[in-house]
């Protein structure tokens, strides 16, 4: 009998079907490296029709699958849980259509976030959501995770920039979510709104119509350094309290500043400061003068040590460079990096940070903080050596306590990285069993058989029963001989 891999290879050819056990090791994790598991195979479809055909083969055989883009997810979204096939969408990377009047673009899921902005630059348009990995991550992945970024304080998350999507449901059927003009047809449900952020568990989007934003005539970036973190956080509250709506409000703590300054992302941040606050405004030149002036007043009021202001693109890039490269630069501190992602109400930032540093101290972990201060979205980073199981356990425990703290302060266990496998056990901190039950029902409406990216987001109570079916399924996928 033909194995599933044979069928896939017959469909896509040997160059677009990988099933060598050793090569597959490359797919065993994403940006979250604590959970690792290689897939049974990887396939590279290049069109909606091919994705449909792949999913038909897989669902017919009861084989779970995992959609994947650039693998920059920080919560294990594209990492297999249990034997499954990775559907790699990186080759579907074409911008299909740009409409300057509608201010929209139709893209395939593998289009890199920043490439879309580059593609429409000549029209003075851009794609607003800008996760720190924007030069790598794909729009498809952004839709799955509802990615944010520094600028979502003013411009919103991925979900706010979606108009429509063509989705291949797990059994291969096509569904059109949203409409040509808006996210929801009249008298219809906001299917796209609930699909976005489903972390690849509701289906695979193969065409996405996104809203493009008009470039602002001018941008002003200010950077202030402070002798203590509390002053930096208070400055943020004051800025927002004055009714200013900056495009971004970012804070880096001292340890982050030092890591950044030691890397290729060196931005000239003052290394003696306890915190730097990055504030960006966009709009017309004269209003920026006014807003920057008010912001400087706030900085002065909170005893800023040094204030820098950048107007030209090169200087702005320099101020941003360190923030954008912060995570990569953290790689210099140790062999592994755990990037956490919790949210607290902005008024609780100081309290949250104090608690987080205390937790770090308690567990003897190397911990730094870089965060979207406007949204109260914290990114504590823990550097550690993943080969050391005892240390890794302490890191995981510290992470758990930090998220517990965020929820206790009225926040969330994830602001933009998603739940994936990473925070699956933290979901009960935020939701009761009945809340999770309602979520599970919605998921089943999209994926009856539970084949689409299983083992993510919702704690699975029947995992044991599932695993008894694995040997037979693996044999179907690889063929009897190879499976043995």
């Amino acid at each position, binding site marked *: 009998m033909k194995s599933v891999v044979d069928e896939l290879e017959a469909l896509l050819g040997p160059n677009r079907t990988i099933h060598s056990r050793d090569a597959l090791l490359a797919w065993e994790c994403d940006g979250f490296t604590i959970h690792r598991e290689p897939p049974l195979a990887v396939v590279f479809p290049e069109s909606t029709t091919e994705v449909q055909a792949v999913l038909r083969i897989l669902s017919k055989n009861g084989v779970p699958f995992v959609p994947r883009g650039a693998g920059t997810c920080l919560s294990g979204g594209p990492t297999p849980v249990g034997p499954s096939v990775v559907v790699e969408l990186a080759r579907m990377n074409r911008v299909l259509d740009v*409409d300057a*009047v*509608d*201010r*929209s673009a139709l893209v395939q899921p593998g289009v890199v976030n920043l490439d879309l902005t580059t593609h429409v630059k000549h029209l003075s*348009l851009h794609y607003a959501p800008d996760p720190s990995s924007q030069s790598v991550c794909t729009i498809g992945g952004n839709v799955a*995770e509802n990615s944010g970024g520094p600028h*979502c304080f003013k411009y919103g*998350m991925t979900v*706010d920039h979606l108009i429509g999507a063509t989705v291949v449901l797990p059994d291969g*059927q096509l*569904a059109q*979510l949203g*409409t040509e*003009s*808006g*996210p929801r*047809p*009249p*008298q*219809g*449900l906001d299917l796209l*709104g*609930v699909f*976005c952020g*489903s972390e690849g568990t509701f289906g695979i989007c193969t065409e996405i119509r996104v809203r493009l934003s*008009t470039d602002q*005539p001018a941008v002003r970036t200010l950077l202030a350094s402070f002798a203590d973190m509390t002053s930096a956080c208070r400055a943020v*509250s004051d800025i*927002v*309290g004055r*009714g200013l*709506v900056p495009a971004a409000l970012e804070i880096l703590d001292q340890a982050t500043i030092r890591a950044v300054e030691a890397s290729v992302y060196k931005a000239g941040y003052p290394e003696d400061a306890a915190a730097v606050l990055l504030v960006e405004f966009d709009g*017309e030149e004269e*209003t920026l003068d*006014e807003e920057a002036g008010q912001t400087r007043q706030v900085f002065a009021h909170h005893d800023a040590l040094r204030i820098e202001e950048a107007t030209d693109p090169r200087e702005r890039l320099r101020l941003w460079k360190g923030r954008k490269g912060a995570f990569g630069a953290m790689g210099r501190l140790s062999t592994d990096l755990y990037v956490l992602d919790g*949210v607290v*109400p*902005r*008024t609780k930032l100081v309290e949250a940070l104090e608690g987080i540093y205390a937790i770090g101290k308690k567990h003897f972990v190397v911990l730094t903080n870089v965060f979207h201060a406007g*949204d*109260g979205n914290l990114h504590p980073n823990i550097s550690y050596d993943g080969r050391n199981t005892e240390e890794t356990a302490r890191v995981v425990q510290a992470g758990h306590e930090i998220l517990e703290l965020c929820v206790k302060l*009225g*926040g*969330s*266990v994830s*602001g933009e*990285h*998603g*739940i994936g496998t990473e925070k699956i056990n933290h979901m009960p901190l*935020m939701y009761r069993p*009945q*809340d999770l039950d*309602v*979520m599970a*029902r*919605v998921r089943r*409406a999209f994926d*009856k058989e539970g084949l689409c990216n299983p083992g993510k987001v*919702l704690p699975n109570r029947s995992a044991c029963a599932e695993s008894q079916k694995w040997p037979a399924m693996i044999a179907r996928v690889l063929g009897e001989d190879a499976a043995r």
Partner: protein
Amino acid sequence: MSELRPASASEVASMLRDLASAKTSVRIRGLGTRDRLCVPAPKGAAILSLRAMSAIERLEPDDLTCSVQPGVTCRQLADALTRAQLELDCLDADDLGTIGGLYASDPLPAASPHAASPRSTLLGIDGALMEGLEFRSGARVVKSVAGFDVHRLLVGSRGRLFAATLLHLKLRPAPKAKVAFESPPSDVVLATKLLHTLRIDASSPKRLMLLRENGVAMVCGVASGNPRQVASLLVRHGLREATAAKRPHLSAPDVGHELVVGCVRPSRLLDLVAALPAEAPLLAHGGGHFETMLTPSRSDALVAAMPRIGGHAVVALGANARIGVGTHLDVGAERLQRELRSALDPRALLA
């Protein structure tokens, strides 16, 4: 049957549970101001009104969030926000209905990148399923991606998936200037051109509409933000300040006519105009949604033309049998709507 008016979330859940065990259909509503947009409830259906749940539970100006019960009126919330120097993008202070009704009916998607769509101002809900199960979805903070966003299914659900008992909303600081504007009257081609230009302006107005009545067209809306920015926008596009903002909806249709709502890509707006009779009133939003009034035979003609134009058109108000007549959703989306309804309300009691 008389109207049930629960006063708390647990009362909503227990009433729904009782009705479910009696296999009674239920129509969930607020003050009933949008009833006219719904197919009448089936005979014998119970009416569950959330009007008694009218408390603003929490308003946090520093966190830019609030939690409100579904029976809070739009006017009530708008006033509270004004006092706190805050605003909610999709809120219309002249709206007589409730917040629950606003999100559950047909709120308009955003016209400009500076305005938030209803789906993005709704951060989370507490809700109750027909079977009486109380649940939470989303969060109270401005940003959270934890779990599936079941709360977004409230938007446009018309009370047919679950009852929302508390809504967590994302607010913004009130803009320093907020100016209603309109263009000089012109023909619809010029007005469309102006609408397109305004859409791509870097300071695009938060509310932007093209209105054609009695054969005369104009562009109107509300611009907000920094006073200088607003002033220069008006000058740049030859707009003047209006005494009052135009309502974002057409009024009730004349006898023999029906209200048709739909959506079309803004770039195809003139194709839509070409498919309408010259005398038909038209309200087209910058976000792509439109409303028009037609005789039944002309609505049918428009519905038939929509596939060519791209987009949707549905009769929203008219004879009972006509409500909901319109373009079909695609097969996959239809299936998902069905599956979602049967997942959350398996016995199809929410009418």
